């Protein structure tokens, strides 16, 4: 189908103009007046459009695409929570590692066969000072064995079954441990008290004790080996009868802060005063 002369003329003119422009652009790539004119004409429009595009884009990104951001936020929160849990777990492992290192250091220092046990429970009635540990007769744990921790002596075994044992702590009035004051070498009997402290009884009246003096086991009770830390002297007073003086002792070990203890297997039924000659379990 043929178009009119006017249409054909217009098409030829425009095509020619295009070809002319095309060829002329090779020669004047910079500073060409026509291009400059076109650019100048388009610049404000282009700038305005770009400005609005940016603004609208920002609005879209900031507000209208909140659904995506919400999902991303949820995922990130989940990750933060997971990482926090991981950090807590690592911190817990780090603390456990430090505790076990302390236990191992003490274990290697002791001349007796020992066993590390975990505390699995405390006194059911709350009226006695006892704890339960996860080792029993199957592991060689029997009554009257000494139980200790890196910070100091814990107590002694009073009952044991195949899989667990009960330890009476040095803060229970039932227990008595023969002790010495490390600095002065004075001997006394350490017993528990319901105020979570210990009392060092039957000390000589002429004893010269100071607050902070270390109290260690004497090894003469046949249960605790010699030289183990029991606590530190807090205060001194005359006994009720007036024949002796007694001292309040802060126990070295705080039961709420320990999770593992060492059972000294060599002290079952008493041991020799000379380390190395104790009875084997």
């Amino acid at each position, binding site marked *: 189908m043929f178009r009119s002369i006017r249409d054909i003329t217009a098409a030829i003119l425009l095509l020619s103009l295009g070809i002319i422009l095309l060829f002329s652009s090779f020669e004047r790539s910079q500073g060409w007046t026509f291009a400059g004119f076109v650019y100048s004409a388009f610049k404000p429009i282009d700038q305005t459009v770009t400005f609005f595009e940016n603004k609208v884009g920002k609005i879209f990104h900031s507000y209208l695409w909140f659904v995506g951001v919400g999902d991303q936020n949820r995922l990130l929160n989940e990750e933060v929570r997971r990482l926090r849990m991981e950090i807590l777990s690592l911190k817990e492992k780090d603390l456990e590692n430090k505790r076990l290192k302390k236990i191992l250091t003490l274990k290697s220092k002791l001349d007796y066969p020992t066993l590390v046990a975990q505390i*699995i*429970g*405390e*006194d*059911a*009635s*709350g*009226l*006695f*000072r*006892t704890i*339960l540990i996860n080792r029993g007769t199957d592991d060689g744990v029997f009554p009257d064995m000494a139980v200790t921790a890196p910070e100091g002596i814990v107590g002694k075994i*009073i*009952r044991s079954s195949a899989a667990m044992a*009960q330890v*009476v702590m040095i803060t*229970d*009035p*039932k227990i008595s441990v023969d002790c010495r004051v490390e600095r002065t070498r004075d001997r006394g009997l350490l017993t528990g*008290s*319901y*105020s*979570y402290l210990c009392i060092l009884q039957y000390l000589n009246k002429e004893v010269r004790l100071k607050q902070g003096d270390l109290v260690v086991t004497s090894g003469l009770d046949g249960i605790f080996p010699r030289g183990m830390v029991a606590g530190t002297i807090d205060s001194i007073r005359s006994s009720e009868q007036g024949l002796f003086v007694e001292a309040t002792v802060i126990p070295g070990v705080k039961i*709420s802060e320990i999770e593992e203890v060492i059972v000294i297997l060599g002290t079952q039924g008493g041991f020799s005063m000379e380390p190395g000659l104790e009875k084997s379990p």
Partner: protein
Amino acid sequence: MRELLFVLFAGWVGLVIQCCILNSIFSMEIKPDLTLLVVVWTGLNGDYLSSLISVFLLGLTQDLLSGAPLGLFPSIYVAAIIFSAYVRDNFHVESLGTSLIITLLISLFCFCLVFISRWFIGQITFEPVMIKIVLIKTILTSLGLIIVKPMLDNAWKGYSRIVGAT
């Protein structure tokens, strides 16, 4: 028999909570005695004979899980059942207030008896702090009944529906 099993189970749950869980969630040194609450609840609600047997067994377990000499808690719990059965037979004990008073009296009796028995066998000498321990523990245990009693009532209702106990 069904009642006995229920009381034993509830008591043992209480013991496990006291031994292993209560210390980590309760920062105080003195804590309520959940097993005693089970004993009081049994005394006020249960059949006399099965209550006696179940609390005796509970007491034995309590002895083994605490430093008590064997036989102390069974005796105390049996005495508590006798007392609560007497109260139930002679007074109206349905209200929470009455139960609280009975719990208070039984707790006071129980905790005092623990210290007296220890003193009697020469394990301890009197310390003023013991009075504080007994009083605080008694109050905490009695208040614990406000939470434990509805729980035990509901558990008993559910258990009765399942096993057909009355």
